[in-house]
């Protein structure tokens, strides 16, 4: 407790030793300790079944932790019913009340708080102003497009000025362009209102765009919690490296460990000098992680630096703003290299080349 006092004072939400099981045999959330500061935008990111939605539901009050305690603003809330928590929530399929108009939906959280009619009207107007849906106030949810419903759901979760708003994959049902637009809109609302947001998604692009911090979930455990750039640039394990962004993985055995670097003998032949981010010691297996944009192509037998690996071009893919080359490198036939536009012009199938990368761009992580 004494060590946590300062954190408790700052943190709006604190998960402490949370475990959750539904069937009494299998833990969906194995061990969760997480502090969320006031005003922060934290994303829970992970594949389905990783425990991120369960975590959100425990915070909202729809699921009870099997073990541990959740603090909201310093108060334990494990046994507090959801309607007393004062947490706004945006649901996956919006959950707008179909028998009420847009304005009635927005007025609902205010009227259950017994606010004055005039105050309700003013707040509803402000909310409609914020989402720019003033003309549609008397429509029913069924008469709105997906994006409009999304905005109403967002406004409804914010209209009663909760200290915290939860979003459970709120953009999952929208098409790509609208999703990107809504990401920016949610970010704008977060910045102007200063509200604390806990956001659940399985879309890593969405998480990178919007979050202050991202908690990467897998198998009921937070693998890493960090800012978007730290997650991308400095993943602490192979799961995070693979889950966030494109990643080239090469397996090998640590031959020599000399902090901060190590030498790794690859299974497919050749040695590489890598940053020893998460290795167990000399003679232990490791998986190297190299981002496609950190790799340079050189002619066969060319290139310089400590890390040069022979490669064979398998395929090139034109993607408009850039191009990708798929290579076979040290037994990995899905090794990708990001090239500038037109960079793929001189490459052909079966061509032998050399890939080079700097030791600091190659992280030696846990073996998979």
């Amino acid at each position, binding site marked *: 407790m004494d060590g946590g006092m300062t954190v408790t004072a700052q943190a709006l939400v604190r998960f402490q030793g949370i475990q959750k099981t539904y069937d009494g045999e299998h833990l969906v959330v194995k061990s969760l300790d997480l502090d969320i500061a006031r005003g922060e935008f934290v994303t829970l990111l992970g594949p389905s079944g990783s425990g991120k939605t369960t975590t959100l539901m425990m915070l*909202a009050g729809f699921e009870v932790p099997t073990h541990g305690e959740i603090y909201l603003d310093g108060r334990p809330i494990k046994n507090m019913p959801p309607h007393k928590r004062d947490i706004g929530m945006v*649901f996956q399929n919006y959950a707008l009340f179909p*028998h009420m108009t847009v304005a009635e939906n927005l007025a*609902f959280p205010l009227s259950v708080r017994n606010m004055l009619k005039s105050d309700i009207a003013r707040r509803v107007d402000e909310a409609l102003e914020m989402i720019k849906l003033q003309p549609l106030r008397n*429509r029913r949810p069924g008469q709105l497009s997906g994006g409009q419903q999304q905005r109403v759901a967002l406004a409804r979760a914010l209209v009663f000025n909760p200290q915290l708003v939860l979003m459970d994959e709120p953009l999952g049902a929208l098409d790509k362009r609208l999703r990107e637009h809504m990401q920016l809109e949610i970010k704008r609302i977060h910045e102007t209102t200063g509200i604390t947001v806990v956001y659940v998604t399985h879309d890593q692009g969405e998480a990178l765009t919007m979050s202050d911090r991202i908690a990467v979930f897998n198998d009921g455990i937070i693998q890493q919690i960090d800012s978007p750039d730290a997650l991308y640039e400095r993943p602490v394990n192979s799961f995070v490296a693979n889950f966030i962004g494109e990643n080239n993985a090469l397996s090998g055995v640590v031959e020599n460990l000399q902090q901060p670097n190590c030498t790794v003998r690859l299974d497919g032949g050749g040695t590489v000098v890598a940053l020893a981010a998460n290795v167990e010691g000399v003679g232990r297996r490791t998986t190297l992680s190299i981002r496609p944009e950190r790799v340079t192509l050189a002619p066969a037998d060319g290139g310089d630096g400590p890390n040069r690996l022979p490669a064979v071009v398998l395929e090139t893919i034109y993607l408009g703003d850039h191009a990708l080359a798929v290579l076979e490198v040290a037994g990995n036939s899905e090794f990708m290299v990001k090239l500038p536009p037109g960079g793929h012009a001189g490459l052909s199938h079966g061509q032998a080349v050399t890939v080079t990368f700097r030791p600091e761009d190659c992280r030696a992580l846990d073996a998979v």
Partner: protein
Amino acid sequence: MVAAVATGDIPLKRRLRRAERARQFRALALVLPLLAFLMFTFLIPIGGMLWRSVEDPEVGQAMPRTVAALSGWDGKEVPGEPAFAALAADLRQSYQDRSIAGVAKRLNYVSNGLRTTVMGTARKIRDLPAPGTARETLVAMDPAWGERATWSALKGASGPVSDFYLLAALDLKRNMEGSIVSAPEEQSIYVDVFGRTFGIGLGVTALCLILGFPVAYLLANLPAGQSNLLMIFVLLPFWTSLLVRTCAWIVLLQGEGLINDLLRWVGLIDEPLRMIYNRVGVFVAMTHVLLPFMILPLYSVMRSISPAYMRAATSLGAPPAVAFLRIYLPQTIPGMGAGCLLVFILAIGYYITPALVGGAADQMISYFIAFYTTDTVNWGLASALGAVLLVATMLLAMVYGKLVHGQQNTGGLKN
């Protein structure tokens, strides 16, 4: 521009119709068997019933001369000699070809005793009375012929259609001046019976709603395994015949029945409670029989209500009771409407259950329809009662349609 090019010589609308025609024919062919079935088993009998409720043929067919003679009669006083002569001729003729019984029965509906008048006179007329003496002869045979009321009854029954049965079904009749007045008190029973029918229907509907709503809610919200089991219990009554179920209630509810024995054994009562052959028995048995018709529509509507709505409501600060009343309940209105309408319409047509477990004062309109159809063979009145019931039911269905359409909020296109 594009449209103009595309239409060519033939208007676009006509080409669309042509393109759609094959599909429409196929759709029509698919519904044709059902349409034919409904036509013969439903529409034609109902049409027949409606027609019988206004058809009034006996007197017109058996006594054409009298009807013709009375066509110009103002009804102010007993008609003159030509009418009597025509009547005498018609009575004699119809006695010979045996159509007189129908006339006697029809006129007896208007006033008790006219059967004797008609049959007696017809039996006595052997030969046509001499010209000019028809009146004397007939009044001598039965003084009723000298009364204005008798002739008024004849004229009112001269057909071929009349509102006699429909008015009777509503406890109304036409007086001698032809205006509609209420029937004498001792004959006025149908308005009471309709009132009782709708009262029992409403009561049963309310009981079904109160008992069925929680069951439907459970069914819609339990895990699949348990809800399937519960669903079997809901549907179980359909596996036995209506008659068996009703008789089972007689066994349970009677004075020496299971429930009374149990209550006496427990010591709650000393004397057996009277729960059968009265209104209690009717409510218990009908509610039991009709409960599934309330539960099933409610269940299907509740199944489609996502649990996310209740979660959203509580997350927005509504206590569970408020969330239920303001979010859940309004969304079940279509199911409640459909269930109530179904139960009510079935209930007001109920015959066998009230006939078996109800007392004399609990019989509903169907009992009287059956009585007039099979016992007294007064099809005109039976049809008229049926027609009134049908119209009341259709009005209700229309009101429901209006209410539900007004409630319709799934958005999208208005049709």
